[in-house]
C-alpha cells in the first residue's frame, strides 16, 4: 500500500515538473537572468568597443541621483501614470455604463471600443502626432476654427505633456472599460431592483451599489494599469520622442536612450534598478490594498 502511495506522489511531482519546466525555463532566461544581470551591470561600466567591463561601485547611482534631469523625468513619469489612471477609471466607468445600456448596434460599438486597445501603440502615437501637426494637423485645424489661432501643441512643454496624457487615456481607457463592464455585469440585478423600489435615484444606485461592489476590481485594475503604464515607451517614441527638450521623457524612454542610443549600459542598468524599485513600491502598495479590501484572485 505504502509503495503505491509513494509512486503516485512521485508521479505527480514528475508530471508537474515536466509540464511546468518549459515555461519556467523561458522565464528564467528572459526575466530572472536579466534582472540579475541588470543589478550586476548597474555597478559596472561597460566599454562596448573594447568589451572591457570594470566595477565602479555605486558611481552610476551617485551620478543618477545628481542628475537634475532625472528628477524631472521622474516627476513627469509619476504625473503621467497617476493622471492617466484616474482619468481612465472615470472615463472607463462612463464608457462601461454606456456599453452596458441596451441599444441597437451595441455589438458593433463594443467592437469599436476594443480598437484602440488592439492597434499598435506606435501607430497610435504617430497618428496623433500627425493630427497634432502644428501646420497640417486635423486637431490643430479644428482648434484653430474654434478659438481663432493655431495652437502649437507639441511645441510647448505644458501642452505636449497634456497631449501625452490624453493620448494615453485614449489608447488604454477601452481596456479599462471592458473589464469594468464585466464587473458591472456581475453585479446581481435584484440589488438595483430593490434600490429602485426603495426610491433611490440612478446616481444613488451607482454610488451605493456599483462603486462598493466594484472596489476590489477598481483596486486591481489601478495597480495593473499603474505598473503597466510605467513601462510604456512606444507611445512617447511615436508621439513626442520625449520632447520638447525632455518635457515628455519618462523613465522607460530615458532607459532606452541611455542603453540603446548612447550605449551607457552601466548607467542604463542603474536606471533599470530605479525603475524596478518604483514598480516594487507600487506593487507593495497594491498588495497592502488587496489585503485591506479583501481582493482575491
Amino acid at each position, binding site marked *: 500500500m505504502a509503495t503505491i502511495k509513494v509512486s503516485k506522489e512521485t508521479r*505527480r511531482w514528475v*508530471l*508537474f515538473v515536466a*509540464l*511546468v519546466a*518549459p*515555461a*519556467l525555463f523561458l*522565464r528564467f*532566461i*528572459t*526575466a530572472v*537572468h*536579466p*534582472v540579475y*544581470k*541588470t543589478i550586476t*551591470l548597474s555597478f559596472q561600466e561597460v566599454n562596448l568597443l573594447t568589451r572591457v567591463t570594470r566595477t565602479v561601485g555605486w558611481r552610476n547611482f551617485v551620478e543618477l541621483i545628481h542628475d537634475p534631469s532625472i528628477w524631472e523625468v521622474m516627476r513627469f513619469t509619476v504625473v503621467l501614470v497617476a493622471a492617466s489612471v484616474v482619468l481612465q477609471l472615470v472615463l472607463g466607468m462612463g464608457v462601461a455604463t*454606456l456599453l452596458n445600456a441596451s441599444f441597437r448596434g451595441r455589438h458593433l*460599438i*463594443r467592437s*469599436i471600443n*476594443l*480598437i*484602440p486597445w*488592439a*492597434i*499598435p*501603440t*506606435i*501607430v*497610435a502615437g*504617430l*497618428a*496623433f502626432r*500627425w493630427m497634432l501637426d502644428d*501646420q*497640417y494637423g*486635423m486637431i490643430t*485645424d479644428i482648434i484653430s476654427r474654434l478659438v481663432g489661432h493655431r495652437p502649437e501643441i507639441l511645441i510647448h512643454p505644458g501642452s505636449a505633456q497634456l497631449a501625452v496624457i490624453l493620448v494615453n487615456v*485614449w489608447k488604454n481607457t477601452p481596456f479599462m472599460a*471592458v*473589464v469594468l463592464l*464585466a464587473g458591472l455585469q*456581475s453585479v446581481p440585478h435584484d440589488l438595483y431592483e430593490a434600490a429602485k423600489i426603495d426610491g433611490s435615484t440612478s446616481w444613488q444606485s451607482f454610488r451605493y451599489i456599483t462603486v462598493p461592489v466594484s472596489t476590489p476590481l477598481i483596486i486591481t485594475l489601478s495597480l495593473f494599469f499603474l*505598473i503597466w503604464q*510605467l*513601462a510604456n*515607451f512606444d507611445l512617447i*517614441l511615436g508621439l513626442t520622442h520625449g520632447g520638447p527638450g525632455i518635457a515628455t521623457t519618462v523613465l522607460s524612454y530615458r*532607459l*532606452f536612450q541611455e*542603453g*540603446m542610443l548612447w550605449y551607457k549600459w552601466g548607467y*542604463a542598468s542603474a536606471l*533599470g534598478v530605479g*525603475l524596478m524599485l518604483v*514598480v516594487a513600491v507600487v*506593487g507593495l502598495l497594491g498588495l497592502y490594498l488587496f489585503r485591506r479590501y479583501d481582493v482575491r*484572485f
Partner: protein
Amino acid sequence: MRVSAQARKVAAWKWRSALRMYLSIILFALVVLAPFYWIVISSLTHRNELFSIPPQYFPSFTLENYVNLARQVPFFDYLRNSLAFGVGTTLLTLVVSFLAAYGFARYPVRGSNALLFLLLMSMALPEIITVVPLFETLRNLKLLNTITGLILVMSSVLVPFTVWVLVSFVKQIPVEMEEAAVIDGANFFQVIGWIVLPVMKPALATMLTINFINAWNNLIYPLVFSSSASSKTLSVAITEVFQARSPYGRPWELISALGVTMVVPVVILVLIAQRSITTGLTSGSVKS
C-alpha cells in the same frame, strides 16, 4: 386627462434620455475613430494635397502612396517577418502555457501555488529593463537579427498571463472526464488530445487571438534586436519611415499608409472575435 398628461411627460423623459444616450454613443465613436479617419484619408491623398492649410477632409483618391511605400521600403520582407513573428510567438506561447497551466491545475504540489503567484508577478517586470541583458544573451546564442530570437523573448513575456487565464479554464473541466478516460485505458497524451484540448478549444482560440495582437504590435524587441531586414517587423519599419526626412518634412503619406496596413489586420480580428477577446481580457480579473 391627467393620466395622459403624465404619460406624455414620461414619454418625453424617455425620449430625452434615449437621445442623450445616442448622442453619447456617437460622440464616443467619433473620438475613438477620428485617428483612423485621419490616417486613412492621409494615406489616400496625393502628397501635394496632403500638405495644405486648411487640411482637406475629403480629398481626391489615390493608391499612389501604397505603391511608393512598397517601392521605397522592403515592405513584403517586413510583412513576412511580422507574420512569422506573430504566428511563431503565438504558437510557442500557447504550447508552453497550456502545458504549464495543465501542470498547475492538475498536479498541484507543495509550493506550486506560490510558484504560480511568482510567475504572475513577473508580469510586472517592464520589458525595457530586460533589453540590455537580453541583447547580450541573444548575441551569445547567435540569435540577434533572427525571428527565432524574437519569438523566444516575446513568448516569454506573454506566458504568465496566458498560463493564468488557462489555469482557470483547465480547473473548470470536471476531472472525472479525464479519470474515466484513464480507466478506459487512455494514456496521458490521449487524455490531453481527446478530452482536454477539445473542451478548451474556445479558450485556446481566445489566447491565440490576444497573443497574436500583442506580438504583432510589439515594437521594443524587434527594434532593439534587429539591425537588418532579415528580422525587422512592420512596427520597426514605421519608425524608420518616420525618420526619413524630405524637403517637405516628414513623409506623412507613407507613414499613414504603413499605419493603415498595420491596423487593418487587428481591426478585422477585433470585429470577428470581439466576444472571445473580451472573455480572455476579463477572465481572471472578474469572478462571475
